[in-house]
Every structure is written in structure tokens, then in C-alpha cells.
């Protein structure tokens, strides 16, 4: 995880080349951060097509904004800020537009292979319980406010430290910890009926 204050940005060279119109350098940045940003956007939107479209918009926005990127933060922090802001704006618009329910979400999100432990495959009962738990976890995640879901996604799923989350969201570390605390309490209460 880059620390803006201590290290030079490892992406300086790629960013400078991309700024001068080298699209291959920008491709390298997409390949470097694409998966992480995909995870962020997907866990926030729970929708694969929306994730794809948003990711295109995020990288296009970053590409066009490169001339205004002053290097006050690392490229990583900067593009994360763009991604979080655009995703939150998208979620607000989507909520206004359709009042999306859980039924509108991707089947794949409800059937996340990452949660299926291979050791449980041989045990249909355990596997069924795990699926149920996974479904409840996703529902609980979607019942969080957008601000809380953002910190849970970044901290618990993506493993980003508090300080970096604070930098990306432009809030204090205390705010990040407080949001996480309340988000965890909410998830605990939502999952208590399904926890053995």
C-alpha cells in the first residue's frame, strides 16, 4: 500500500507517459488497478453490468483528468477517490431512478463462489448453510448505508488500512473507525439468526 507522505509514487513514470498521450502506459495502469477497482465497485453496486460500465467511466474520467493530476497524492489514492465518488453518485442516481430491490441484483452476487469452501462441497448440508449465510451476508451488506458499505468494502473486503481509507474518503481516521464500528454492529445483528 503506497504511503503518500514517505515514498515517491511508484506510478510516476507511467502517469507521466500517459499524460503525454502514451495510451499503453495508461493501459498498464488499468491492468495494475483494474482488479482492485472492480472489487470495490462490484461490492458496492452488486451488479456486474453496472460495475463494467462504471469502471469504463472511471478510467475514462481518470484519463481525461490526468493533465489536472498534480501528484499531491499517489495515483492509487487519486484513482480510488475518483472510483468511490463516481460509484456513490451512481448509487444515488440508481436509487432515485428505480428503487432497486435485492431481486434486481446479479444472481452471481447471490451465489458468490468466493464463499464456497471446497471442503464443504462434499457436505451438502454444510454447503447449503454456507449458501444461506452468504446470501444473508450480501443482503446485510446491501442494507448498510452507502457510507458504511464503502468503509466495510474497503477495510474488510479489500484490506485497505484505516489511514489510507481516510485519505481516499477525505475524512478523519476517527470517522473511518466509527463508521466501521456501526457497520459491524449492523452486520452482527442482521446475521445473528443465521449464526451457529
Amino acid at each position, binding site marked *: 500500500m503506497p504511503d503518500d507522505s514517505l515514498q515517491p509514487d511508484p506510478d510516476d513514470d507511467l502517469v507521466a507517459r500517459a499524460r503525454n498521450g502514451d495510451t499503453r502506459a495508461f493501459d498498464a495502469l488499468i491492468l495494475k488497478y483494474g482488479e482492485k477497482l472492480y472489487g470495490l465497485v*462490484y461490492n458496492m453496486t452488486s451488479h456486474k453490468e453496472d460495475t463494467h460500465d462504471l469502471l*469504463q467511466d472511471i478510467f*475514462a474520467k481518470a484519463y481525461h483528468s490526468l493533465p489536472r493530476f498534480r501528484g499531491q497524492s499517489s495515483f492509487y489514492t487519486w484513482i480510488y477517490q475518483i472510483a468511490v465518488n463516481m460509484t456513490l453518485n451512481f448509487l444515488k442516481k440508481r436509487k432515485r431512478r428505480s428503487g432497486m430491490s435485492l431481486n434486481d441484483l446479479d444472481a452471481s452476487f447471490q451465489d458468490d463462489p468466493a*464463499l464456497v469452501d471446497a471442503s464443504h462441497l462434499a457436505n451438502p448440508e454444510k454447503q447449503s448453510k454456507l449458501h444461506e449465510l452468504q446470501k444473508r451476508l450480501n443482503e446485510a451488506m446491501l442494507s448498510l448505508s452507502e457510507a458504511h458499505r464503502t468503509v466495510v468494502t474497503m477495510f*474488510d473486503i479489500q484490506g485497505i488500512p484505516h489511514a489510507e481509507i481516510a485519505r481516499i474518503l477525505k475524512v478523519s481516521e476517527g470517522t473511518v473507525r466509527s463508521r466501521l464500528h456501526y457497520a459491524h454492529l449492523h*452486520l452482527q445483528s442482521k446475521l445473528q439468526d443465521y449464526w451457529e
Partner: protein
Amino acid sequence: MKPTVEEIGTLLALKRHERPEDGYFDGFLREFHQRLRAEEAQQKGLAGWWRKTSAWFSDLGASKWAYAGGLAYATIVVLVMTFPRGQEVIPTATTPVNHEVRSLEPAAVEQLDALDLRPSTKGRTGEQEF
């Protein structure tokens, strides 16, 4: 029974391995380049100018309202300064004309040849004599 915070963290951490399918970013990059080319083509002409201006304006953040206010104020000032003002006309009392107006005959021009332009040697009393 409630799961602990650590258990919730462990459960959520499993989702860290969630990735798009293999080869996803090859197609993603192709689409991205197509998009950039289409945007470049669009940016030529008036529509492009408008898009760039809109993008610049939306990038300004909260200060855009100050710019918008200033622009609106300047527009109003320019309109007030340049709008043609009608001259103030004081209405005068009019009387109806009830007689025929005839155009005057042009005054007869005396023929210079007929005039005696020689200096006169005789003058009357009090007049200068040449």
C-alpha cells in the same frame, strides 16, 4: 447467537478473492480504446467545445456556483449597458389643421445680366461716394 466482529471480518475477507473472469481486461481495454476514439471524433466541432466546457465546469466543484453567479451578473450588466434606450419624448399639444397648405412658388430669381452692377458715382446724402 451473534457472530463476533472478527468472524464477520473473516467472512467478508473471503470476498477479497472475487475477481472478474479470465480475459476480462483484454475486452475491457479494447472497449476503452474504442470509447476514446469515439470521444476524440466527437470532440471536434461545436459539440466538442460544449462537452469540454461542461466537463471543465463540472470539475470545478463547489466553486462552480461562484463562477456561475459571476457570469450571470456580468451578463446582466452587459445587457443593461448595451440595451438601446428610447429617447424621452415630451408630447406637445397639437391643434388640428383645418386649412389647405399650399406649397410656395419658388421665388423668382433675378437675372444678374439685367442688373446694373457698375459702381454708382452718385450717392445720396450720408452715403459714401466712389
